[in-house]
């Protein structure tokens, strides 16, 4: 129903903080765009500029082809779900959901029909007469969603909507939000600092860092080809192993002097590989893969379905994922391998090469 276009959007707060430093994103119709990044990187600021809650210092925000820089939040036809839900505490659930429709002068029976329909979708029917303080965290979250959906806006905006829920509920709601967004077909912008949420929800994933876009694209593409060491360590859990190299004559040396021969592209200075792409074999054997780093196990973290070995190798901490129960114990000597096509290379500045 609507596209959202950000063109070189900037935000300088009155105090002089430059929170967003030129962001351009084109969100296609019906897509769910996730902004992910560490706390303080400007995600909320960007979202609030789309909502009309913050002025735009430079650049333009367009919704459905119309520049909305000078238009108030009410006229942008957006709905927002806040992190603390921002439910009106003195109103019943019904009135919380009806408030926006009443302000827009909708007829009483239409309001009633839409509120009840939405409540049906979200299984809130039996809660309509309650006040927010009589609801659990998960129920409040659903009411906040309901308040957004009932208005049938052009764009949904979510600012960390699940971060106040416990892990299990967060997982359920994540799936539910995705399904709702799909079935309603409403273009959405979703802010989170949780990379799992970002990966699973996004049609378009935007990784932000210090007010700028680090990488933008399909989540799996970003996972497979992170554009920088920042993205590599932010997307994926546990994070990608990153090792600094010094260039030898025809091969690469790890910072502590251990030599390992690997074919590296020109300009590479940092080697990265993911824990799930790594392979660990006992110290006296050679791994099949190109890389064969000698390492010592420092800790073992069993998760059940898999285990993580925390090793020290070449002066760095390296995490290796092994399926099921790990046989290694702390102090064991290992060799860590990774297939050469699973290796990532970055230059001195952390940008991807090759």
């Amino acid at each position, binding site marked *: 129903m609507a596209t959202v276009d950000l063109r070189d959007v900037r935000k300088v707060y009155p105090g002089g903080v430059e929170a967003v430093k030129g962001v351009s994103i084109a969100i296609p119709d019906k897509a769910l765009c996730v902004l992910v990044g560490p706390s303080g990187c400007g995600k909320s600021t960007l979202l609030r500029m789309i*909502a*009309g809650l913050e002025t735009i210092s430079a650049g333009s925000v367009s919704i459905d082809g119309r520049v909305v820089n000078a238009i108030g939040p*009410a006229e942008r036809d957006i709905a927002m779900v806040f992190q603390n839900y*921002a439910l009106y*505490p*003195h109103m019943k659930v019904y009135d919380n959901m009806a408030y*926006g429709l009443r*302000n827009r002068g909708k007829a009483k029976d239409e309001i009633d029909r839409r509120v009840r329909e939405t409540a049906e979708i979200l299984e809130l029917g039996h809660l309509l007469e309650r*006040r927010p303080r009589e609801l659990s965290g998960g129920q409040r979250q659903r009411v906040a969603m309901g308040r957004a959906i009932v208005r049938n806006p052009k764009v949904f905006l979510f600012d960390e909507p699940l971060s106040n829920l416990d892990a299990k509920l967060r997982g359920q709601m994540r799936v539910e939000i995705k399904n709702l967004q799909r079935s309603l077909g409403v273009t959405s912008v979703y802010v989170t600092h949780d990379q799992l949420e970002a990966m699973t929800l996004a049609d378009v994933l935007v990784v932000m860092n210090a007010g700028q876009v680090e990488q933008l694209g399909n989540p799996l593409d970003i996972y497979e080809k992170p554009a920088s060491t920042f993205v590599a360590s932010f997307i994926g859990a546990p994070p990608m192993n990153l090792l600094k190299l010094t260039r030898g004559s025809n091969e690469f040396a790890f910072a502590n002097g251990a030599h390992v021969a690997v074919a590296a592209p020109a300009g590479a200075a940092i080697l990265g590989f993911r824990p799930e792409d790594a392979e660990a074999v006992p110290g006296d054997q050679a791994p099949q893969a190109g890389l064969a780093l000698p390492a010592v196990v420092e800790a073992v973290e069993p998760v059940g379905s898999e285990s993580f070995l925390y090793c020290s190798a070449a002066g760095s901490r390296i995490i290796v994922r092994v399926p099921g129960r790990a046989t290694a114990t702390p102090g064991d000597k290992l060799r860590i391998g990774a297939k050469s096509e699973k290796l990532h290379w970055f230059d001195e500045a952390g940008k991807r090469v090759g």
Partner: protein
Amino acid sequence: MALSFRRRKSLSPRVVFPNRILPYLLVAPQLAITAVFFYWPASQALYQSALREDPFGLSSKFVWFDNFVRVLSDPNYVNSVQVTAVFSLATALVAMAVALLLAVMADKVIRGRGIYRTLMIWPYAVAPAIAGMLWLFLFNPSIGTLAYGLRWLGIAWNPLLDGGDAMVLVVAAAAWKQISYNFLFFVAGLQAIPKTLIEAAAIDGAGETKRFWTIIFPLLAPTTFFLLVINTTYAFFDTFGIIHAVTGGGPGKATETLVYKVYNDGFVNLILGDSAAQSVILMAIVIALTAFQFRFVERKVHYG
């Protein structure tokens, strides 16, 4: 008592004094103060209200409820009740409405916020009698600067002769002094409203005025209710100094509130029995009023 203590203990790890006497010793100072400064004078007033002194104040006799009957059938007293109702209602409403307006505006000030608020609090530090004198001078028909301005605007203004003008003047002075106090509470109340609620309402299509009446004002209800109780009590009891300084209850008896009449009859006219009966009635009125406020008004208040 012992039973309820034990039950509490099983529910929460509360500290319990096994000693039977210590708790009473600990509350004794508080009880003593309440007894000496409240119950004793109250009981004295109650006792006095049933006595009638002879004109020379040499002897007194027990007359049961005669004083009450006389007071309640006195047209001056009925007038005083009306004056008090008008005065208290007007003072509380003006003081709260103006304070709320100022607080809402102060909430929007970004630069010099602290200075603005500090300046707003000063009137509260002014003693009632001085506040009264201030307003008296400003609005004195012959020398008052503002009275001159009013006359220039074509308003016939003379609080020394006109009872209505006098009432306006005492209400203004009494409200002015209470505005700072109300302002502080309203500012705090406004700050306690999460900003995201206002933002959510803005996105929900509510304009500024609508947001105020549908979100901010209802959420301020606990503060407003608290201030309503405080302001009515203030208007009833703590405005004696202002009335004394500004109008002395006049002209005629146009600004003679119940408290002022107690003083006039008791200390000026020395009709102690009547004065005591009036105090007792006053006490009953305030208790009834507060009970009413808590019972009926508070019910409409939503505490977050």
